[in-house]
């Protein structure tokens, strides 16, 4: 029995992605604004988690700054689109979206430099310092960011002459952007670059001996992961229409880290599952009344005790167990045949 080739599994990923997007296009038609808001939020945080999944899950770099990148993207977009925008209602948002991605990509490269010198928890500290610094900038530079009072009246993007004020229209727009970014990520991971990232995680020494340039690939992993954070921020700002420093604080970076771990780091679909766990499940658990955060915390604990590899790791584990069982059954059967032979 040959193990499934990584290629076929990735193709399954793409299939799930496309099918999921098609279903999601129609799902919220009957939903009210609250439901649409929750799944919109889920998509945005999935993008941010996808970026972190690349840095953490594929390249093995522990970053605690993803919410800071989200914040850079959100504030960049807010500044570029509010009050009429820098290029009118039509072009301001697309420009802001690209600028958010580019700016966070650059920030990722800058942050990636120390990442080359330190590893593991030291790297986590470096990113933690960066996240703190960004939070203080968001909060204290009131002339630029609005400080603790927040940044109000961030407009929704305009598409084909229509401002996406309608929640359903904005959700579908989000869905298309999310799909595009996911397909780009899927392509990246299948490309030689993606394999180099994985080689980097599994065994840096061997990767180097195979000709992978450690420095540039570490930088690239960090920068692309950060760029996805920026893209998510560019969507977050017009979704909420108001930002203040709180959602980009260090605790938010921890939640994003949890999202990737819970979903299953290094699995392509992990961030989507993880984001559903981190951002949608607490909303659903509200039926338990005052205990909902307690129930949620217990669920996280239980999951990570049972499967440290996250939700998709759990699926993999079950599949592996079945495979072992099948193999054992086969061995038992052949043994009987051997013994039965005279």
């Amino acid at each position, binding site marked *: 029995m040959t193990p499934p080739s990584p290629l076929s599994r990735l193709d399954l990923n793409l299939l799930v992605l496309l099918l999921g997007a098609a279903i999601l296009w129609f799902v919220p038609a009957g939903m009210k604004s609250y439901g649409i808001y929750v799944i919109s939020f889920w998509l945005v945080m999935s993008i941010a988690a996808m970026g972190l999944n690349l840095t953490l899950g594929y390249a093995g770099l522990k970053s605690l700054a993803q919410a800071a990148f989200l914040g850079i993207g959100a504030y960049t977009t807010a500044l570029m689109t509010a009050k009429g925008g820098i290029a009118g209602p039509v072009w301001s948002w697309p420009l802001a979206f690209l600028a958010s991605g580019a700016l966070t990509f650059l920030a990722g490269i800058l942050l990636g430099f120390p990442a080359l010198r330190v590893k593991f928890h030291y790297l986590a500290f470096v990113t933690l310092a960066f996240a703190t610094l960004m939070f203080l900038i968001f*909060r204290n530079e009131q002339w630029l960011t609005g400080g603790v*009072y927040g940044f109000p009246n961030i407009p929704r993007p305009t598409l084909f002459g229509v401002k996406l004020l309608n929640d359903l229209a904005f959700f579908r727009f989000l869905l298309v952007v999310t799909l595009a970014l996911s397909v780009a990520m899927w392509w990246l991971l299948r490309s030689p670059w993606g394999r180099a990232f994985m080689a980097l995680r599994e065994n840096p020494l061997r990767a180097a001996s195979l000709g992978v340039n450690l420095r540039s690939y570490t930088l690239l992993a960090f920068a692309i992961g950060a760029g996805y954070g920026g893209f998510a921020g560019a969507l977050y700002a017009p979704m909420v229409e*108001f930002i203040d420093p709180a959602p980009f604080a260090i605790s938010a970076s921890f939640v994003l880290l949890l999202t990737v771990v819970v979903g299953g780091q290094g699995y392509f679909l992990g961030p989507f599952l993880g984001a559903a766990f981190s951002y949608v499940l607490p909303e659903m658990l509200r039926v338990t009344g005052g205990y909902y955060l307690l129930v949620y915390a217990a669920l996280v604990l239980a999951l990570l005790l049972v499967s440290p590899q996250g939700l998709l790791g759990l699926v993999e584990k079950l599949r592996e167990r079945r495979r072992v069982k099948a193999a054992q059954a086969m061995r038992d059967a052949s043994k009987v045949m051997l013994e039965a032979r005279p």
Partner: protein
Amino acid sequence: MTLTKRSLMLATVALAASLGAAAAQDAVKIVGVVELSGAGATAGTNYKNGAQLAVDEINAAGGILGKKIEFVVYDTQTNPGNTRAAVQRGVDEGAFAIFGPVFSGPIGASMQIAQKAGVPQIVGGEAAGLTKQGVTTLFRTSLNQADAMPKLANYFKDAVKASSVAVVWVNNDFGKGGRDAIIPELQKRGIKIAADIATESGQADFAADAIKVKNANADAVFVYLNEEESARFLRAIKQQGYDKPIVGETTLLGAKVIELAGAAAEGAKGHVGLSVDAPVAGFAEFGKKFQAKFNYKSDHNGIKGYSGMYMLKSVVEKTGKFDKEAFLKAAHGAVIKVKDVPGILIDSKWDDNGDVDRESFLAEVKGGKQVITGTLPPVNKF
């Protein structure tokens, strides 16, 4: 499962559903969107409990215009994004009004949703900026900082007789708003700012800040922090042997602060908008009822929730129908007096911005209790 069992269950479910529907028909839904966890939990829980007390009383007395109030509360975790989702949910569920939140940041993030839907939102926030943005659905239950701070600045000048003041504030929208409002008012009265000290929301150790205040050598210190932080600061500054006047606004003299700070709260004084210890008969009676029901002492947020619910009832009854548009029209400019609506607790007027005006009090902590030392008139007489 056998067929009979299943049909029995189905019947039960159907019955329960129809009963629920029947109950919903003569009820009016009011959704509380409140900080029950996170940094605002103390304030939010008091606000919710105050509102709940009022709802229970109103329902026991037959409801509003014959309809019972169905009061549902959603936690915001003191997070603007979650608050927005919760307000949206309330609007989707057809709430007649949204009750909360209490912290100003989450109010700023969510008030546009209520505005868009035309749903009245009765909040506990004090930040000055909230009512300056042309939102027509927002109503405060406590004084605007911009109204409270001039009163406090006068107190510094006339009662404390300070010529320099150290200002300690919490770096969130509430604290920053208060700081930005008090400093020009003090300077206008010729009082020097000896130190301007920002602290963090949720900060645990205030020793460094206390030393800074002590070294500033001002005639008094103004403390503008949320409840828990106020208590921690009081303990820290008393450890430094500070003996100058410690002055605050509402939060510093709250019941929770006195409970947490213990002896360190002794002698703290200042201005309070609402207090169960104020020499107003309604407040005292409310305080007793609250204590009996929830087994702890309400702070000003409890009064806000309670009187806010009665404000809603009074305005709805004035319009004679459950009509949001009519409510908004009638609530702007509404004057509600205790002799007509005892639940309002203190004569109050709401202006066209949704700001509330009423009497307020000067208080001091003596013998582990808040003691009212004076009464200040409303900003504009009504």
